[in-house]
């Protein structure tokens, strides 16, 4: 066979690529061509690109080893533009598209001229585990210098510095049965369960479904496997209870059969998702699957043998050699030596020879191999060297020869004379490891199986491994195993299913000789002195490193893993873990089951942040809650403050005379003066509102609030304080008696949902006998607070409610029309001024709000925001729960004895705790006012308070500032604070040492700075 000039390793026939179309791509700045059907890896091999990366620690040249998810070396950085950079892409899993741009991820400044070689040399021929710390930590001060460069050279790619142009999303899926892997086992299982009527989801990580059927030499019903595959996929597609997800990796298996899948929807089409019919479509999608049962048909990974210089480009897995030939029409070299411990790997030599390339020799560790494939190889005239193995690869940038000798596997010794075979490719196979990663995520411990020389998953209810994933390898048995797994799952789910042999395709029986357990190949030199024998290629862990780790006392495999970094990172030990356990077991003189294995963690392969985030980003990152007046606030140029998820107007800056915009201080000062001298209006719709109905509503209020509710008459409103049963203040608000069995409770904005839950908690768990119901009406009512000396005048013409001070007293509520809309009006005040809180159904909020402003023009009605609200309430000493309290403050600490009904008959929530020794002790932090000695000073909220500023550091801290503002009314800064024993220290000075060295002095005063007698709200 000849080959294409531009793709020296591309065969003229074979494989599933479309040779009639050329795709151009760029790797490390050089342009190449490939074909539709290629992966980036197959196209690179076709073009004879040997070196795809530098290794992580030793900076050794590395080439492609595998053909699937287990590839440790060809991890590339993808992206033609800065915004579309994607790190951590396995070239073996990336479909080729026209214009693809990729780079090696390791090697700085680039893979050819490489800084790491210099660092690698420092470590000498062998860089021991813990090298960086041992070498660079002394002197410790120098670490900072080295670190910058080491960090730059480390890592497997980088994130883009520009915003991602693509969109991503999530999909929640539910199914009876999730089948992971669409190879022969998975397909059989899925079809069996689907026919029984189960809702089946079948996902597969490859571009095409089929798994091992895509490159098998075997036939089904005497047809090429592709034929059966096509028929089976068509049969599955016909079932409307089946969903097929190709290009979809199950990357994490969580509790109760919750599995996350990463679907790469457009990654095979281009750098960025193409639009479809003019609409953007998600580049990739995370499926969150809740399954009734799960079948893991995840196949097996071939294990490489561990021999010296087994990392030089040109060393491949035997199965990968076959896959590249049979699926992609690529032979990755010319002269092959195969080193194997089993029959199955002979396929590589047969495929290689059929591709017209030279098989130098098959080196088989077994003394008397005897299976059908062995016979075929011999019949084809291939030299088979038995009882031997490749000890060492020669060559730097590419394999140039294999050193082969007879070995004694059990004695771990080279027994024969070394023969050097010239070759450019060494394929190795040490057997197969079932892919048990997902099973491991469930917590199922792997169980060693001597018969297959590998770990299989232990049993977990609802999860079944099938086919190669549980160590069943012959194709005929795999198909039967899949059918059985599918039928079992369907039966467990309550569907009638049977294992019908007639549905199984006929597979020619094949005799396979037994494999031998070979992991690390002995070398003439001891492991510590032999050339590097790599166990974990991605993390650069050698057999010698594991040897050293065990010598240094790391006996647990979990410790060996952490000391050497074996199985870390995105690789998760796919190729290396079992070999690593075996090396550790040999060094420790114990068996592999005794040594055990480490557990694989999610994610199986990397998932992009885009897919993890989905559409929970940018303006949809978190809900923004709006009041019905949001449009008005925006139009008025309000600055907003986040209060929980609510957007609340913070202040409304106006244009100044000079054309500039008011600062916050200026706006707040103006707003404050308007309320104290004229009239202002606040959108208070965000306050929580809970409708309480039932004959026991009053009793319930008495139990949940600290104060008394027995005598509150309809038409009246009362302030209430709520504590946890630990006696600490948790919320406050007003509650109105609407009727004898009907109350309306208000809560703080942020606590609306927690307070409703709190009421339900007590009702449902402690006092279910009380007849009362709670319902949130927060969003139903819009609330606008009209407050200031002119408030009554403003409202008079707008309402039919009698606003006379005697007819409508402070802490009364009335109903009537406001601006033609039915309203409830509450005469309560959070500013200390005359105030009316108007509640209307939210549909009419804008109507009423605008009517108020139309009428308010004559009164210079001023909208004010939360900052002004805070200043005004603090001037009155009104607390904000969560700002002036922090979960460690009792009503007594706040000086609110008047709100505690110690003599109420029922032991209300919080009462008992208020007489505990701790809540009764002296020296508790108590809420006080602080008046800075310098009126120009506004103390910092959170600033620590001391009694003696001359005390040596650390000074005893006796409290902190909870609220602090500048008061335009007082023309001074003022603050609320908690201070140890503060209530007994009125008039004393305290000190606030600041980070910049200044020390502020302040006087402890009462908490009511404005109108301490509270007369203004009664006018």
């Amino acid at each position, binding site marked *: 066979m000849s080959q294409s000039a531009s793709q020296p390793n591309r065969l003229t026939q074979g494989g599933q690529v479309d040779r009639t179309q050329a795709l151009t791509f760029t790797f490390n700045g050089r342009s190449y061509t490939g074909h539709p059907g290629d992966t980036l890896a197959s196209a690179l091999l076709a073009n004879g690109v040997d070196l795809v990366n530098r290794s992580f620690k030793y900076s050794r040249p590395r080439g492609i080893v595998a053909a699937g998810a287990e590839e440790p070396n060809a991890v590339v950085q993808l992206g033609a533009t800065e915004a579309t950079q994607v790190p951590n892409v396995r070239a073996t899993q990336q479909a080729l598209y026209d214009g693809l741009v990729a780079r090696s991820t390791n090697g700085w400044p680039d893979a050819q001229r490489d800084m790491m070689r210099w660092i690698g040399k420092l470590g000498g021929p062998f860089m021991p585990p813990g090298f960086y710390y041992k070498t660079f930590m002394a002197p410790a001060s120098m670490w900072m210098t080295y670190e910058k460069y080491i960090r730059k050279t480390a890592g497997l790619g980088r994130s883009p510095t520009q915003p991602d142009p693509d*969109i991503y999303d*999530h*999909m*929640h*899926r*539910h199914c009876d049965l999730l089948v992971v892997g669409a190879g022969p086992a998975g397909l059989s299982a899925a079809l069996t369960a689907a026919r029984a009527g189960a*809702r089946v989801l079948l996902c597969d990580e490859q571009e095409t479904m089929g798994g091992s059927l895509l490159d098998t030499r075997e036939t089904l019903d005497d047809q090429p496997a592709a034929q059966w595959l096509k028929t089976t996929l068509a049969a599955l597609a016909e079932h409307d*209870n089946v969903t097929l997800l190709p290009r979809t990796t199950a990357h994490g298996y969580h509790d109760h059969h919750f599995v996350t899948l990463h679907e790469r929807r457009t990654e095979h089409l281009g750098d960025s998702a193409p639009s479809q*019919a*003019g*609409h*953007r479509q*998600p580049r990739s999608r995370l499926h*969150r699957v809740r399954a009734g049962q799960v079948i893991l048909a995840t196949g097996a990974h071939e294990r490489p043998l561990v021999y010296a210089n087994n990392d030089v480009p040109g060393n491949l897995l035997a199965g990968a050699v076959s896959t590249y030939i049979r699926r992609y029409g690529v032979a990755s070299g010319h002269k092959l030596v195969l080193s194997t411990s089993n029959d199955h790997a002979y396929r590589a030599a047969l495929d290689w020879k059929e591709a017209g390339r030279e098989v130098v020799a098959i080196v088989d560790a077994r003394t008397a191999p005897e299976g059908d494939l062995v016979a075929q190889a011999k019949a084809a005239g291939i030299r088979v060297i038995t009882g031997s193995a490749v000890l060492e690869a020669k060559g730097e940038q590419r394999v140039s020869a294999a050193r082969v000798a007879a070995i004694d596997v059990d004695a771990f010794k080279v027994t024969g004379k070394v023969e050097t075979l010239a070759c450019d490719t060494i394929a190795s196979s040490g057997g197969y490891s079932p892919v048990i990663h997902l099973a491991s995520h469930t917590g199922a411990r792997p169980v060693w199986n001597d018969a297959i020389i590998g770990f299989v998953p232990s049993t977990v209810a609802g999860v079944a491994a099938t086919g190669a994933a549980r160590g069943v390898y012959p194709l005929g048995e795999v198909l039967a195993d899949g059918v059985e797994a599918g039928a079992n799952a369907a039966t467990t789910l309550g569907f009638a299913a049977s294992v019908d042999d007639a549905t199984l395709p006929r597979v020619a029986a094949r005799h396979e000789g037994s494999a031998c357990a070979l992991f690390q190949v002995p070398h003439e030199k001891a492991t510590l002195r032999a050339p590097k024998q790599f166990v974990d290629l991605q993390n650069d862990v050698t057999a010698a490193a594991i040897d050293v780790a065990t010598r240094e006392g790391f006996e647990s495999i979990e410790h060996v893993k952490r000391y050497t970094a074996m199985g870390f990172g995105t690789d998760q030990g796919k190729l290396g873990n079992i070999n690593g356990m075996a090396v550790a077991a040999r060094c420790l003189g114990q068996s592999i089951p005794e040594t055990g294995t480490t557990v694989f963690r999610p994610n199986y392969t990397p998932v992009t942040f885009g897919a993890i985030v989905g*559409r*929970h980003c940018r*303006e*949809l990152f978190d*809900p*923004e*809650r*709006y*009041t*019905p007046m*949001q*449009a008005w606030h925006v139009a008025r140029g309000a600055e907003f403050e986040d209060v929980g998820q609510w957007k609340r107007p913070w202040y409304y800056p106006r244009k100044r005379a000079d054309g500039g915009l008011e600062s916050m201080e200026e706006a707040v000062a103006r707003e404050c003066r308007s309320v104290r001298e004229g009239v202002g209006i606040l959108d208070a719709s*965000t306050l929580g509102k809970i*409708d309480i*109905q*039932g*004959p026991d509503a009053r009793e319930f209020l008495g139990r949940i609030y600290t104060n008394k509710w027995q005598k509150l008459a*309809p038409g009246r409103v009362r302030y209430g304080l709520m504590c946890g049963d630990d006696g600490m203040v948790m919320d406050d608000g007003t509650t109105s008696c*609407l*009727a*004898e069995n*009907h109350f309306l409770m208000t809560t703080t904005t942020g606590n609306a949902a927690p307070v409703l839950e709190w009421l339900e908690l007590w009702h449902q768990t402690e006092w279910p006998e009380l*007849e009362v*119901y709670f*319902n*949130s*009406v*927060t*969003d*139903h*009512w*819009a609330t606008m607070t009209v407050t200031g000396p002119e408030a009554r005048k403003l409202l008079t013409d707008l309402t039919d409610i009698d606003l006379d001070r005697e007819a409508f007293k402070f802490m009364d509520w009335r*109903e009537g029309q406001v601006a*033609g*809309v*039915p*309203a*409830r009006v509450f005469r309560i005040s959070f500013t200390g001024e005359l105030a009316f809180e108007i509640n*209307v*159904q*939210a*549909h*009419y*909020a*804008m*109507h009423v709000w605008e009517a108020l402003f139309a009428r308010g023009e004559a009164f210079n009605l001023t909208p004010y925001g939360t900052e002004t609200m805070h200043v005004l309430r603090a001037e009155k000493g009104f607390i904000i729960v969560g700002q002036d309290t922090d979960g460690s403050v009792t009503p007594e600490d706040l000086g609110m004895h008047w709100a505690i009904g110690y003599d109420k008959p029922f032991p209300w929530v919080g009462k008992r705790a208020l007489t505990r020794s701790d809540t009764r002790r002296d020296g508790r932090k108590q809420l006080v006012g602080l008046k800075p000695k310098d009126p120009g000073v506004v103390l910092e909220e959170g600033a620590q308070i001391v009694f003696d500023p001359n005390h040596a550091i650390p000074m005893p801290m006796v409290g902190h500032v909870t609220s602090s503002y500048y008061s335009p009314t007082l023309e001074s800064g003022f603050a609320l604070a908690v201070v140890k024993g503060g209530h007994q220290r009125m008039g004393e000075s305290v000190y606030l040492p600041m980070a910049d060295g200044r020390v502020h002095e302040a006087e402890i005063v009462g908490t009511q700075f404005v109108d301490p007698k509270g007369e203004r709200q009664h006018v």
Partner: protein
Amino acid sequence: MSNSVHVYDARADHATVTAESPLAYSYQRSGMPAPGEASGEKSRAVIGERAFLGHLILRGGAIVLDEALREVLGIGLPGRPNSLTVDADGQRSVQWLSPDEWLLIVPGDETFGLETRLRAHLGEAHVAIVDVSAGQTLIELSGEAAHEVLMKSTVYDVDPHAFTVGTGVTTLFAKTNVILRRPDESRWELIVRRSFADYVYRWLLDAGEEYGIGVARESRHESQ
């Protein structure tokens, strides 16, 4: 009926008072892409608001409420959890929300009359009836990709085979919660809280983008 509970008709005269639906600001801010407009082809998902309906929360024992409802409205409480009953002309519905809680949706101008008649019929029974009409709104979702839009948004199983007609649940929707129900084969209904309505609207437009989602300008109810 005793006066132990305060019953108040807070609905204004829509002829003289400007009423704004919970999505009024959203239409202004995010627009209303017309169905099929964007690409000239049919939208595979369409949303539309049915504003100003009457929403009443009923709390109490199932037996007494069921009897009152049959008497007053001619439909009974749904017997099973997570289910929905709709009257003959599809204008009135009652949905199970919890063992002692149901959501009643009726034309807006029937709300207060219905509450009054129910209370009269219930007498002194321990129940609660709460008008939440202005606190939430109803968004209809239809089109062949409607359930896919929902799959992107809610953890609940919305496979049309699993979420059958007559099902109604309270569940998560993106990062808020909604009442989700399926009154007939062709439509889904989302009942969202007023303050979260803009978030849900923007989410729906975003999640529906790949299906060419459009917004029906006239609600089914108003156009009749």
